[in-house]
């Protein structure tokens, strides 16, 4: 019997997702709960396990296509004679199991201008033709439009040519390559632009003396290793952030434009910008004020690992209240990170280096770094942000104070 595998309801607010990768092909045998498909939502990549054991008959949503929640994306022959529709995805939220199909007696595609043969081609390529932009007169969809959409390009070749003028009218020349904007890349591009376009961002940079923290970290490294975790500077910085966020609540807030309120958050969920092969993702460490540095270190390690394997669940990337981005391992002085909206601020951490510093009138060599705080000026003013940053740096520099926080 065939089983229609519908894109499950992944979580609040997520109504569609882009098929990033199928982990089984037509004809493959799949086992219930094995990772089957990777979906990119506007928030995260999610791996959805196979709802059934059986054979893949058909893939209806091709990689790169956007599928709506409830849309059938795969047909599985589950082999069983008397299979009953059951709860679909165990690890995700319960979804309607094989919801009774809506009677479609009329004309499902009345407004789509495409010939019957083109519509059939779209079905065969697993393309939802309603998403295809037609290149013909009055938006007529051609076979080529469908094929281009199926290959991952949301618009037909003429549009590409117009947007990026190049000698060759169709496609790139031998010295160029077209990479379809999709998946994580597409989400990043949309969200970064939106953040810059809808908030008033300013970056404040200050210098921090890390000498004592470097020693402190060395001191804790051994016991961390005993616990099986690798201790970086980030758990310490997080711990230094907590008292500052408590003292400067507007930094740990978001602006609800609709209701005209600033939402001050009394919980501290820190997003950790993580570099992965697919691009930047931001897993969230929850309730950092209630965790010690070892717990934080362990969690960050796990999340980063899951992020790199594209295994994060939606719950692991949402609900952040403040974000840290760390490019220290790569180098650089300081930066102007983009706020991870709807959060209000992001802290950039940079390379710790031995630099000459004037202390008590003498030049000394110390471990220093720069903290770059980008913030939304609609909510936070410059002085407030500067005071916040100073407060963080104070804690970082004062090992005694920090010790009371870290454990």
């Amino acid at each position, binding site marked *: *019997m*065939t*089983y*229609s595998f519908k894109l499950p309801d992944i979580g609040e607010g997520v109504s569609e997702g882009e098929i990033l990768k199928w982990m089984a092909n037509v004809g493959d045998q799949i086992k219930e709960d094995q990772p089957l498909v990777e979906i990119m939502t506007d928030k995260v990549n999610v791996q959805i396990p196979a709802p059934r054991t059986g054979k893949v*008959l*058909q893939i*209806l949503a091709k990689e790169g296509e956007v599928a709506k929640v409830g849309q059938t994306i795969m*047909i599985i022959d589950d082999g069983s*004679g*008397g*299979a*009953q*529709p059951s709860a679909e995805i165990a690890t995700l939220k319960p979804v309607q199991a*094989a919801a*009774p*199909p*809506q*009677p*479609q*007696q009329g*004309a*499902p*595609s*009345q407004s789509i*201008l*495409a*010939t*019957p043969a083109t*519509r*059939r081609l779209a*079905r*065969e390529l*697993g393309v939802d033709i309603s998403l295809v932009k037609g290149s013909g007169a*009055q938006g*007529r969809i051609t076979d080529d439009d469908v094929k281009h959409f199926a290959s991952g390009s949301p618009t037909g070749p003429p549009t590409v040519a117009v947007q990026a003028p190049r000698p060759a009218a169709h496609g790139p020349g031998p010295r160029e390559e077209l990479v379809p904007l999709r998946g994580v890349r597409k989400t990043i591009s949309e969200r970064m632009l939106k953040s810059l376009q809808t908030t008033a961002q300013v970056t404040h940079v200050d210098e921090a003396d890390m000498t004592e923290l470097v020693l402190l970290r060395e001191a804790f490294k051994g016991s961390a290793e005993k616990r099986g975790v690798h201790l970086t500077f980030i758990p310490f910085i997080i711990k230094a952030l907590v008292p500052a966020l408590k003292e400067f609540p507007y930094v740990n807030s978001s602006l609800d434009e609709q209701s005209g309120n600033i939402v001050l958050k009394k919980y501290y969920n820190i997003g950790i910008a993580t570099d992965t092969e697919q691009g930047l993702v931001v897993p969230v460490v929850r309730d950092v004020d209630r965790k010690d540095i070892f717990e934080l270190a362990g969690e960050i390690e796990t999340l980063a690992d899951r992020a790199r394997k594209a295994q994060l669940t939606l719950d692991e990337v949402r609900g952040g209240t403040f974000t840290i981005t760390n490019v220290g391992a790569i180098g650089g002085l300081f930066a102007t990170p983009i706020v991870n909206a709807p959060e209000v601020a992001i802290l950039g951490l940079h390379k710790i280096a031995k630099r000459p510093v004037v202390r008590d009138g003498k030049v000394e060599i110390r471990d220093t770094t720069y903290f770059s705080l980008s913030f939304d000026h609609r909510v936070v003013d410059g002085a407030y942000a500067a005071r916040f940053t100073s407060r963080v740096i104070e804690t970082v520099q004062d090992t005694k104070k920090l010790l009371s926080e870290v454990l």
Partner: protein
Amino acid sequence: MIEADVAIVGGGPGGYVCGIRAAQLGLKTVVIEADRLGGECVNYGCIPSKSLITVSRLADKVKEAERYGLKASGVSVDFVQLQKWKGEVISRLVAGIELLLKGYHATILKGEAEVVSKDRVIVTTDQGREEISCKNLVLATGTRTSSLPGLEFDGDLVIGSKEGLDLKGAPKRLMVVGGGAIGLEFASMFQKLGSVITIVEIMEQLLPGSDLDLVRVVHRKLEAHGARIYLKSKVLRIDKKGSEATVEVETPDGKINIEVDKILVSVGRKPRTEKLNLSALGVETDPRGYITTDSRMHTSVPGVYAIGDVRGPPLLAHKASKEGIVAAEVIAGMSSAADWKVIPDAVFCDPEVASVGLTEAKAVEAGYKVKRSRFQFAALGRALAAGEPEGFVKVISKEEDGLVLGVQIVGPEASDLISEVALAIEMGATVEDIALTIHPHPTFPEAIMEAAESAAGRPIHQLKS
């Protein structure tokens, strides 16, 4: 026990086509038919009625033959021979269907099917009980005529369409209850065969739901030839006296009594699902009892499909056949779906009425800025030369870009003309596309081109409106 990939319950235009396609695709296919292959359409509907209608039209033409200089005398209709010929047409088609199914190696089982579970069907054939174990089940049992309380079929005086096609002669006075497609075909046909026709229709127009402009042409022609048509009326009582009856009809102007020899009830159809065990299977139906499916013919139960009339209106053979193909292809793992834009329909009354896409009213309702253009057959050479000047073509298009939204035709060969427009709509053609396409002269389809030219703002054979 027969093992099958697909068991199809019902061998009508949905089921047998599904069977052919499934077998073509290499699926082990069983088609189960309780009566005769071809179903209602071939045996008791579309085909036999067309045989009779053809003869009735010929007989009618001959009546006015003198006008055309054709001398014919002693013309009469031999119903025995007519019924024989009708039977031959049916037999030939049924044999053809059987040949096709067998030729593609589908198994035909003749007998009543009882669906035990979604993968088990028991068929009672002449040879005994046959059990089928199937991976997929296609329900294609169609519909049957429904009657009205007080108007129950008695097989003699009060009959349905099936009996109406088997009559041994034209009733002197025929009452048709229900002025829909079937009722009107019978009314036009028996009028031409000599019956005095009365039509009783409960709604305020014949062919309820159709464009009134078109219906008016048919209505007038029926009346002009002596039919009495009572709209917003219903039958209250039938007093049977031997081979005739007095029917009391409530009309908007009061109650009247009408003497008739035959009452043909065509008030609709209902799904034939009694033997399908739907509730035990868990197959969902709508409030009227039609099986609900998605556009790929899946019912609410995986592995169970429904096609044709049994999944609800419009009850049309051509829709059933296409759905049968979709179901077969879906079962074979193809990506087929019912994604047609339009389903044309045709009524073989006189003149014929055919329609595809949106009517003017529906297009306006859907929010389109509508352009309407018409062309009268009275201005078409072919129509005049055929002695068929009644009716017109009406083209409904989008004001801003000329996209064809719908076409309605009342007139000669309307049923054949409509296909061109169905293709135009599926292809996304504009009135310009139709206007710029050369139509051979002199033919009826020129009327469509002329109406399209008019919509494009440059009518040739009519004055600019």
